[in-house]
C-alpha cells in the first residue's frame, strides 16, 4: 500500500514539474513585445565609434522591471535564437550617457562586447509605460556595411536572468557615406567699357569715349567704367597706362597733380569720384552698400572736383576678395585759345592685378 502511494506521489510530482516546465517555456516563447523600439545611431559608418540611442516602450507593467538586456547580433533579431556577434562591434567601452522613462539603471559588469545589460539596485515594481530611452556612447559599430540587429529583453531580475518579461527586435544598418568634390578656381573678373549695367560685364557695348568738341568756354566731360572682382586672398589693384590727348604732335596738357577744372586752361585729367564741377562721374558702386571690403582709391584720384592724369598710375586697390565693384572714371578736358585744331585722341589701358 505504501509503495503504491509513493508511486502515485512520484507520478503526480512529475506531472506537476512537466506542467511547470511547459508553462515556463510558453512564457518565454509568447511574452509580449516592447513597442516603439528603435536604435538611432549618431553615425552609421562601419567601425566608427559613436552613440546609440536605444528606445522602447513597455507593453504592460504587470511585471517588475529589474534589468534590461540589449543583445547585438548579425544573424537575426529573434529573441531566444542563437546570436552571432557582429564582426568588430563592441559595447565593452559603452557609457550610459543618459536615460529617461524607467530610470535608475547602470551598466552591469555582466555586459560583454555585444551584450549590454542595464541593471538597477532594485526592481521597479510597477514600471512606467512611457517611452524609455537609453543613450549609450562610445559604441564601436560593426566592421561590415549592412544590416545588424538588436534584441531587447526586459527582466524582473536584476541580472538579466530568468524569463524575459518582454522582448523585441530592431534592425539597423551601417552605411557608407557619399562624398562630394568640387573645385573653386582662382577668379578675377575685370572688364572696361563706357557703361556697365548691373555689375554685369556682358552689358558693355562700346569702348570709345566721345568727349565732343572742345571749346574754350566749357569743360568737356565724359565717363567710362571698369568692374573688378576676385577671390584672391590679397585682393586686387587697378592701374592705368596711357597718354594725354594728342593730335599728331599737338597735345592737351595733362594735370600732373590733382587740380580743379578751370575753363580756358589746357587741362586733361580724371578721377574716380562723383564730381559736381563739372557734374560728372560716380563713386564706386557694387552689389552691396556700403561696399565691403571698401575699395581704396589712390589719393590722386580720390578727390572730388580734382583731376589728374599720370601714366602708370595706380587707381584703386582692394586688400581682400571682393564682389564686383564698378568704378566710374570721370574725364575732363579744357583747352585754351591757343590749342591747335585737330582730332585729339588717346588710348588708356586699365590693368588689374589680383594678389592670390
Amino acid at each position: 500500500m505504501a509503495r503504491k502511494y509513493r508511486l502515485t506521489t512520484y507520478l503526480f510530482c512529475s506531472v506537476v514539474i512537466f506542467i511547470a516546465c511547459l508553462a515556463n517555456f510558453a512564457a518565454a516563447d509568447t511574452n509580449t513585445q516592447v513597442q516603439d523600439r528603435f536604435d538611432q545611431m549618431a553615425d552609421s559608418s562601419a567601425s566608427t565609434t559613436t552613440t546609440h540611442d536605444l528606445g522602447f516602450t513597455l507593453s504592460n507593467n504587470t511585471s517588475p522591471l529589474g534589468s534590461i538586456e540589449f543583445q547585438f547580433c548579425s544573424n537575426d533579431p529573434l529573441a531566444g535564437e542563437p546570436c552571432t556577434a557582429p564582426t568588430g562591434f563592441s559595447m565593452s567601452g559603452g557609457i550610459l550617457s543618459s536615460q529617461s522613462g524607467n530610470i535608475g539603471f547602470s551598466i552591469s559588469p555582466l555586459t560583454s562586447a555585444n551584450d549590454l545589460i542595464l541593471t538597477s539596485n532594485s526592481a521597479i515594481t510597477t514600471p512606467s509605460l512611457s517611452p524609455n530611452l537609453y543613450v549609450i556612447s562610445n559604441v564601436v559599430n560593426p566592421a561590415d556595411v549592412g544590416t545588424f540587429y538588436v534584441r531587447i529583453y526586459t527582466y524582473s531580475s536584476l541580472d538579466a536572468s530568468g524569463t524575459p518579461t518582454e522582448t523585441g527586435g530592431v534592425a539597423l544598418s551601417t552605411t557608407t557615406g557619399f562624398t562630394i568634390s568640387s573645385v573653386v578656381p582662382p577668379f578675377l573678373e575685370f572688364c572696361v567699357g563706357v557703361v556697365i549695367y548691373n555689375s554685369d560685364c556682358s552689358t558693355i557695348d562700346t569702348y570709345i569715349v566721345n568727349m565732343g568738341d572742345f571749346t574754350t568756354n566749357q569743360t568737356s566731360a565724359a565717363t567710362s567704367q571698369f568692374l573688378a572682382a576676385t577671390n584672391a586672398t590679397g585682393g586686387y589693384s587697378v592701374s592705368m597706362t596711357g597718354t594725354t590727348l594728342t593730335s599728331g604732335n599737338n597735345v592737351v596738357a595733362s594735370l600732373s597733380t590733382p587740380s580743379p577744372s578751370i575753363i580756358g586752361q589746357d587741362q586733361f585729367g580724371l578721377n574716380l569720384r562723383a564730381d559736381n564741377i563739372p557734374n560728372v562721374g560716380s563713386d564706386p558702386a557694387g552689389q552691396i552698400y556700403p561696399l565691403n571690403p571698401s575699395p581704396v582709391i589712390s589719393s590722386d584720384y580720390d578727390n572730388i572736383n580734382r583731376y589728374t592724369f599720370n601714366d602708370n598710375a595706380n587707381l584703386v586697390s582692394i586688400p581682400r576678395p571682393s564682389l564686383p565693384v564698378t568704378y566710374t572714371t570721370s574725364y575732363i578736358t579744357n583747352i585754351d585759345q591757343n590749342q591747335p585744331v585737330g582730332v585729339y585722341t588717346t588710348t588708356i589701358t586699365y590693368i588689374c592685378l589680383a594678389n592670390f
Partner: protein
Amino acid sequence: MKMTFNRITPAYVVIVLLTVLLAPTFLLTGGKVHASPGQIQFRSIQMSDDTVNTSGSTANYNVQFNTATAGAIGAIVVDFCNTDPIPGDTCVAPVGFTLTGASYISGTNTSGYTVNTANSGRTFEISNAGASSLPSATTVSFAITGVTNPTVVGTFYARIFTFALPGDAATWIAAAADGSTTTGYVDYGGIALSTVQTILVTSKIQEQISFCVYIVTCGTQAAINLGDSHDVLSISAPFADNTTTYYLSTNASHGAVINLKGNTLQSGTNSIPAAGTTPYLYGTPSTNINFFGMCSYTTSGEVLTVATDYVGNSNGGSCASVVTDTGGTAVITSLGTPYATFGFNATATTSTYGDLLATMPVAGATIGQVVLAAGVNVTQPSGIYTTTLQLIAIGTY
C-alpha cells in the same frame, strides 16, 4: 414401392423455385407494389469545416446525389453513424456529433422542404408533401447548416435515404431509434466522412531594414564630382547633380526616418555657404550665387515625406526636374523651369544625429533621389572643396 413421377418433377420444382425466388422482389402491401430500393449515385457530403470540434463551432454539410428511382421525393433522411454506412446496421451517433440546431439551405430540387432532426441530434430529415416527381438520375442537393462535428478524429458515416412520402420517413424514423429499419425508403446510399486535425503553422517574421546610398548599384559608395568636367564650380549658375540614389526597405511598423548628416563643402578652413533653412532663391541674373544645398524626391515605392528644407519647391519648381550638368557651362535651366530650390541646414546636419531629410510613414520599400547643387560667387576662396555626407535610416518597430 417405387415412385414414378420423375418426368414431371422438374417442371413443378422450377415453378416452385421461381415463386420462391421472386417472392422477395414483389411484396403486396396495402395494394401498392414497391420496387426494391436503388442506390443513389454520385453521392457526396462536402464539409465546410472538417476539423475536430473543440470550440463548439459548427459546419455546413453540402449533401448531393443523383436519384436512382424516378418519382417524387417526399422526404430525405441523412443519418450520421460512427460505425458504418450500411442500412440496417445499428447506427450510433459519432462522439460529440450533433445536429441540434441544424437547419438547411435548399439546393437543386430541394426547395420547399421543412427540417426535422431526430434521434438525439443524429438524424436529419427534410420533407415536402408536395414535392414534384423527378426522373431517375436527377441531381438533388441541399446544405445542412449548423452541424457540430465529432470531437474525435477519424472516419464517420452518413446514410442517405429518400422516401416517396413524408409519412414514410416518419414511419422509418419511428420504427427504430437505432436507424436499423430497412423498409419504407425508395433509394439509399452510404457516405464516409472524416474529421482531421488542423495544421498549425508557426512562422517568425523578424525585424528587417535594408538601406544603402549609391549611384550605380547598392553596395557601391557614391562619389560625386560636382562641377564642370574638371569639377569646377561656376559663378554664373549652380552646377547640379541628380545621380545619387538611396534605397530603403523595412518592415518597421511605425515607419522609418532618414537623417542627413555632414557639413557643407569645405576646403581647409574655407567653406561654401550652406543653403540654409530657407531654400535658396537665385537672383536675376543668376550670378554670384554662393551656396551648397540639396533636395530630395521619391522615384518609386512608398512615397517619402521630404522635409520642408529639402523638398525643393519654394520657387514653384520641382526637385525631380533637375538635370545633372555634364561638363560645359552651368546654366540655371538645369534646375528646371521654374527652377528647383535647395536647402542645407548645416546647424542641424552637423548635430549629433543630423537633420531630418525624409520620413517613410509606413513599412515598405522606397527609392529616393538626392539632388545636389552648388554655385559660388567670385569671392569664394579657391581650392578643392569636399564633404562626406551620410544618410542614416532609423526604423521604429
